[in-house]
């Protein structure tokens, strides 16, 4: 077990708390850099998807996990990013510029959605974002001159500084680079006054307000930043699939994204990555499990939905801190080995706090 004695404020703000962090995260980065030479093409593509979803997850985590605002229409931002990227690269814009525009346009959409967030709370905000998601999905389907309607839209492989990133390896490095940049950006944001303000709003709006936090400004900012990250993720997603259609950005995708952050662990940056890994690995695991089950169950079409739902229920009931919480418990157990107590992470039971009175 490692004891950290903090003797200066700088120590409190450091991104890497101690040498162990540097070592292990360095090792992880190294493994990801070396991945193209180790794993097969198919698994590399899945890894790229994990990285893309991790970017989107970081965005949603910022909104849901750190600011406490839930969006049931987050896939719409993904779609705005994807269609912007498709449209702009389609008319010959360079990749980087299109990506910036995709992020900016998604952020603008996020700002628009954030506006009702100033007046409504809890489930009403959920309804507002849900409605926004539906309207945007319909817009994608109907605005055929721009989005290609239900027939979908094709994209060329991304070109970065004249270099075509058609191969999986090159695209993997693009995703990896952007993921690292986004992660560092989010981590830095979270230790800045803005990030502290987000967490304060999540924990108690009233006390945040009385500490002088401008609720309206920070809530819309949170929505914009979250949407911008989703837009970047969406742009990469569009390039990865090279084909986008409106039904990829519907309510089901939004719920998948929420499932991702809840299963990963709300309120932790690790959770975004673990959730993305889970979301991509789950269909593979189900496919593997199918062979073990009797044919009547294994081949039934609803199996995937049942497993998703059951996993979601299990996590909410037994592990509200998600996969990251599970890891925290394991780590604590290992660190304190003979002295771990069962009740260390036990939740307090309480009477329901009313959300109507706020």
């Amino acid at each position, binding site marked *: 077990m490692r004891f950290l004695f903090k003797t200066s404020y700088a120590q409190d703000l450091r991104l890497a708390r101690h040498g162990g962090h540097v070592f292990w995260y360095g090792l992880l980065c190294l493994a990801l850099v070396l991945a193209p030479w180790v794993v097969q093409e198919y698994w590399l593509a899945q890894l790229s998807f994990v990285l893309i979803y991790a970017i989107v997850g970081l965005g949603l985590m910022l909104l849901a996990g750190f600011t406490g605002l*839930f969006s049931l229409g987050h896939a719409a931002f993904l779609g705005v990013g994807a269609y912007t990227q498709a449209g702009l690269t389609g008319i010959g814009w360079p990749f980087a510029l299109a990506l910036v525009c995709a992020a900016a346009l998604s952020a603008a959409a996020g700002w628009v959605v954030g506006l*009702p967030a100033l*007046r*409504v709370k*809890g*489930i*009403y905000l*959920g*309804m*507002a974002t*849900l*409605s*926004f998601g*539906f*309207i945007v999905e*319909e817009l994608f*389907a*109907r605005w055929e001159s721009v989005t290609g309607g239900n027939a979908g839209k094709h994209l060329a492989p991304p070109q970065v500084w004249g270099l075509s990133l058609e191969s999986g390896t090159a695209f993997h490095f693009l995703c990896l680079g952007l993921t690292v940049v986004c992660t560092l950006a989010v981590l830095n944001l979270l230790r800045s006054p803005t990030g502290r303000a987000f967490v304060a709003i999540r924990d108690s709006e*009233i006390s945040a307000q009385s500490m002088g936090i401008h609720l309206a400004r920070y809530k819309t900012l949170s929505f914009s930043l979250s949407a911008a990250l989703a837009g970047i993720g969406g742009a990469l997603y569009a390039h990865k699939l090279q084909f986008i259609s409106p039904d990829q950005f519907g*309510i089901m995708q939004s*719920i998948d994204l*929420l*499932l991702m952050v*809840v299963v990963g662990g709300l309120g932790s940056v690790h959770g975004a990555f673990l959730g993305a890994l889970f979301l991509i690995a789950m269909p593979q695991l189900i496919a593997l499990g199918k062979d073990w089950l009797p044919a*009547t*169950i294994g081949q*039934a*079409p*609803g*199996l*995937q*939905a*049942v*497993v*998703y*739902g*059951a*996993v*979601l*229920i299990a996590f*909410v*009931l037994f592990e*509200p801190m998600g996969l990251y919480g599970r890891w925290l418990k394991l780590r604590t157990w290992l660190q304190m080995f003979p002295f771990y107590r069962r009740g260390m992470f036990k*939740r307090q*039971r*309480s*009477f*329901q*706090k*009313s*959300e*109507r*009175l*706020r």
Partner: protein
Amino acid sequence: MQFVQLLISGISQGCIYGLMALGFVLIYKATETVSFAQGELMMLGAFCALALMTVAGFPFWLAVPASIAAMGLFGMGLERAVIRPILGQPAFSIVMLTIGIGYVLRGLVTMIPVIGTETHQLPVPYQDLSFRLGALVLSAGQLVVMLATGLLCAALFALFRYSKLGVAMQAAAQNQLAAYYMGIPVQRLDGLVWALAAAVAAVAGLLLAPVTFVHANMGLIGLKAFPAAVVGGFSSLPGAIVGGLLIGIVESLSGFYLPEGFKDIAAFIVVLVMLMLRPNGLFGEPLRKKV
């Protein structure tokens, strides 16, 4: 005349949204959570009646109360098994939980071989009946929907107004802790509320079945009932019905007078407008905490 015809079809569709919204409002009032599984409960109710009629050979008038009662029991069991353990947690975890329940129910029904993936017709006795009123054509299905909604509303009104149980539910809805101190068994009431909501959902499913047929994805109509609940105010029972009617009528009219595509999102546009104008809905009481 055409306008009136559209109005009538909108009202009958709106009644179904209203019934679904009634389920949301019941649960929201009592436990302050929103159940995303309501649409799936509706689907399950319709399938239950279908199974009773085609497999067990029940006559229609017996299958209806039987399936409603079965869904009521199911709702109570659901509350006991998965909702109660996390009461007191943030509302969002219960929302995620109900999304999970919805997934599981839809998946399980789909997994039933042959039955699950196909579209079925519920053999109702009033299937092909229709009445002419001058130039208007009223199908018996529409009439039954309106009639049943009216009766159910009257029954719920009576329950909340005159029965001890209903008064206890109101008390628990206003302040759980205070109600608990007054000797009201709040947890048992929660179970009853879920049972009631599931039964109302089953009624909606039975009424919807002749219109859209019975299939595993019919629960998705529950998403249209959210706007109804929001428009009426999430904490008002009459509001749910009024909101449902409003959404139904807007949808029906926009389907005819506006360009294609507006029908599907009309409900959501209404919600956004509503949230901007009156965040508490038409009938919602604005509550404010005083510090």
